[in-house]
């Protein structure tokens, strides 16, 4: 029932375990998606199929998550993002929402008990979403897990909980607006890179591969911005029945699309850079036009490249300060929750 599954020692390996390791090594000679996102769909349908109740289906889903994390480690996938609970899921019956919250309560509490394994494997845990929508005790467990593992850097697990992509994007825009209100940044500083750093996923690269199980072929408000250039892999299998072989199939699928995606991504980034440089240049020229429309001061006009450079440097400085402010704000939110927890424990 644990989050982190340990390796079995080599001499205790079964033939199937050895075969899995062999296949993993074969796959690893090709490109491996460093960050994979999962929409773990199909728990309820699995429960219906097996005649279990829904809560059991969700528990099986959790087991599958823990197994999948281990398989990802074996394949060299060091960052995993999962869609565990959508803001839309609050629309489900009160009974089901409460049972899901209870499962979450137990699982996040369990996560804290596995501190040793988490620190040993260097796993950094992040929970992404509008945490204020959750019961306070769950918020506190989540905060503790995040604060405890924040400096780990060998593997990254991002759990999207009380999350929707549109909320995430709007939230990022509001953070930027607040930055403008406080005078930390200007509206003209808004760029793809800045938005990337304001999203909940600010510390992660965009996912290279997105896998959705149970046969549905939509994104359902998950990582809409971040998956623009991801390889999409839609599989019929229900999440609790997901296997190592399905993961391998998804990785093979990624490998087949790898070059085309890299090309498209690189092109997009190049265009983005060019557009930014052009906008900077146009901005400086527009300003100079206003001050000196007849181009009488030649030296000023000759110094346009230097002015552009200066503007870029200033912008970078502003953006850095703003992002540090944002990081501190988010860290403070978590620290406050943890402190309240500690006070509660002591009293």
């Amino acid at each position, binding site marked *: 029932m644990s989050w982190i599954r340990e390796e079995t020692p080599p001499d205790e390996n079964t033939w199937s375990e050895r075969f899995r390791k062999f296949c993993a090594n074969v796959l690893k000679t090709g490109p491996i998606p460093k960050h994979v996102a999962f929409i773990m769909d199909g728990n309820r349908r699995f429960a219906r199929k097996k005649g279990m109740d829904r809560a059991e289906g969700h528990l099986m889903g959790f087991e599958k998550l823990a197994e999948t994390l281990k398989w990802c480690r074996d394949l060299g996938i060091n960052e995993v993002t999962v869609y565990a609970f959508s803001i839309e899921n609050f629309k489900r019956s009160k009974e089901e929402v409460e049972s899901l919250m209870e499962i979450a309560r137990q699982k996040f509490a369990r996560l804290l008990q596995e501190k040793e394994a988490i620190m040993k494997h260097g796993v950094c845990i992040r929970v992404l979403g509008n945490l204020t929508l959750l019961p306070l005790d769950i918020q506190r467990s989540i905060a503790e897990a995040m604060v405890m593992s924040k400096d780990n850097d060998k593997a990254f697990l991002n759990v999207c909980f009380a999350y929707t992509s549109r909320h995430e994007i709007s939230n990022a825009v509001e953070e930027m*607006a607040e930055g403008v209100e406080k005078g930390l940044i200007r509206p003209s500083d808004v760029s793809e890179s800045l*938005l990337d750093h304001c999203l909940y996923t600010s510390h992660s690269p965009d996912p290279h591969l997105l896998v959705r199980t149970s046969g549905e072929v939509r994104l359902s408000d998950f990582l809409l911005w971040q998956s623009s250039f991801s390889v999409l892999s839609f599989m019929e299998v229900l999440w609790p029945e997901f296997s190592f072989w399905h993961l391998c199939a998804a990785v093979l699928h990624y490998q087949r699309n790898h070059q085309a995606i890299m090309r498209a991504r690189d092109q997009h980034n190049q265009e983005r850079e060019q557009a930014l440089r052009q906008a900077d240049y146009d901005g400086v020229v527009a300003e100079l036009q206003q001050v000196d429309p007849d181009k009488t001061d030649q030296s000023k006009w000759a110094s346009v490249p230097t002015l552009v450079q200066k503007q870029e440097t200033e912008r970078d400085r502003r953006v850095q300060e703003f992002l540090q402010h944002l990081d501190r704000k988010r860290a403070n939110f978590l620290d406050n929750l943890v402190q309240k927890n500690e006070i509660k424990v002591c009293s």
Partner: protein
Amino acid sequence: MILHQVLLYLVHTFLAIRTWLASLYHGLKKPLAFKHRKRNVHRIKSDSKELSKLPIHVGLVVVEDDFRYGELASLVVWCAAMGISYISLYDSQGILKRNNTSLWQEIMKQQQELLGEDSNKYSIELVKGNRTATQLTGQKYSVEVRLLSSEDGRTDLLHAAQRWCQDVEAKRKKVGDLEPTGLEGLLQATKGAPDVDLVLKFGTVDSLLGFLPWQIRLTEILSLPTHHSIDYQTFLLALQSFGNIEQRFGK
């Protein structure tokens, strides 16, 4: 290590051959399909009535490098004949946008050929970004076609974000006033059009390559190997698949 590399190479070669054989098989199954491109508009309308669900806004996302305007025009006209009111054609680099005249000529030509005497009932218009209201003089069916590229996706969202920040700076708006729908109101690329319900993706790259990130929240994504020699039957099958999909909306 060499063994592992060779094995992976063999697996990929096998997969590539399998894909090639599959497309060959599909190609042989319908040898004269392309010639049967001219469908009767009444037949299309009755096919449309039999669908359990018709999309309102279809995205035709082309992730192939070779564009065939004739076939793309057919897809647009079939959609219009089916009663789909919003059609967005997309390629990440904006090649369709740059060649909009050639594409448009094909669409006009096929509108005449396919829709025949009903052609005048349809107003298929090319809509660019900021839509201006047009006069619909006696046309029964109005269809909006948009040609989009990646700048209508992430870049459009960024411009919306900038506008919001400018409004906050000028104190026209307050931080905290932006609800999810607020940002939507600031987008230009699909202003006036509903979210995309269905994407038909043409090509073997399994990614949307930057297509309208905001508007594809609940979009069904169906992949077709290519738009080259696309036939009506394949298009209809895709719409029938869409019709059979059930959405639970989080519940």
